[in-house]
């Protein structure tokens, strides 16, 4: 087991932008399908699937479940990187950063943290800018494990903050 997976090159990349992309306009159908998936097998609350009902709610219309991802599948504009590395490549963050990766074979989601601003509504276009927030490591059940944290800030077409998100990937 190595003493550390974190190289000087990786450490030097902390703070660097890892992704900048612009969503397609959010649609009521996107929201409806998301809600159906996360509430399955029960139907989701009516405010996600019935536009007339939603219009009578405090939101004034359909809004997305807060954890909704407008960047799934395809984005309207990928500003950086121009081509995203294969998502199954566990070194993809370092590939984007242009530094050698640790070459680890397994990984999973270690933690999520989100702060929410204004809601996402049909027609919104969301811009997401992600940065490498840091690396850390510790020994655990799988030996030495590498923790990689990405901070992602989403804004809408009015430059209002929709979400600030921190996700930590564990690799081993």
């Amino acid at each position, binding site marked *: 087991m190595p003493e550390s997976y974190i190289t000087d090159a990786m450490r030097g990349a902390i703070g660097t932008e890892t992704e900048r992309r612009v969503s397609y306009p959010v649609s009521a159908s996107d929201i409806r399908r998301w809600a159906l*998936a996360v509430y399955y097998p029960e139907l989701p609350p009516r405010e996600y699937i019935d536009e007339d009902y939603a219009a009578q709610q405090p939101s004034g219309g359909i809004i997305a479940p807060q954890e909704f991802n407008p960047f799934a599948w395809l984005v309207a504009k990928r500003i950086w990187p121009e081509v995203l590395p294969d998502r199954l490549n566990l070194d993809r963050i370092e590939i984007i950063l242009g530094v050698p990766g640790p070459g680890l074979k397994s990984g999973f989601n270690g933690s999520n943290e989100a702060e929410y601003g204004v809601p996402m509504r049909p027609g919104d276009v969301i811009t997401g800018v992600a940065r490498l927030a840091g690396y850390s490591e510790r020994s655990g059940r*799988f030996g030495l494990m590498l923790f990689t944290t990405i901070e992602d800030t989403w804004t809408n077409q009015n430059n209002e903050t929709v979400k600030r998100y921190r996700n930590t990937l564990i690799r081993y």
Partner: protein
Amino acid sequence: MTQTETARTAKVGDTLPTFQRTTGFHNWNRYAAVNDEFVPLHMDDEAGRAAGFPTAFGMGNLQFAYMHNMIRNWTGAEGWITRIGCQFRSVNTRGMTVTTRGVVTAIREGDGTKTIDLDVWTEDDDGNKLAPGTATVTVRT
């Protein structure tokens, strides 16, 4: 502890109504379809075993969504999650019934709103915590 049915009447120490799902490919495939999260660990028992787990396992993001669902069911349309976070400490293996729980830890009132801090977590069939976390919600009073 008392279970509180709505956020408006909550008191410190109250528990939230749970959100529970028996999980497997029927849930995970639907979530993969909307989040484009087709990862072998979530689709293939062999991939789960190769990574050191007994079966494939569910997405942490879906457990995170279940926490949101529990809170939304509790606050209704008057509420808004302002912050939520959790650590994924154990995996949600195939066939497991995942129960999402929450307890009120603090309440602040002012300007026509109630701000409520929560401990939230998911747990397995035996009550072992999978993903402990915290959240803050605001509710109009």
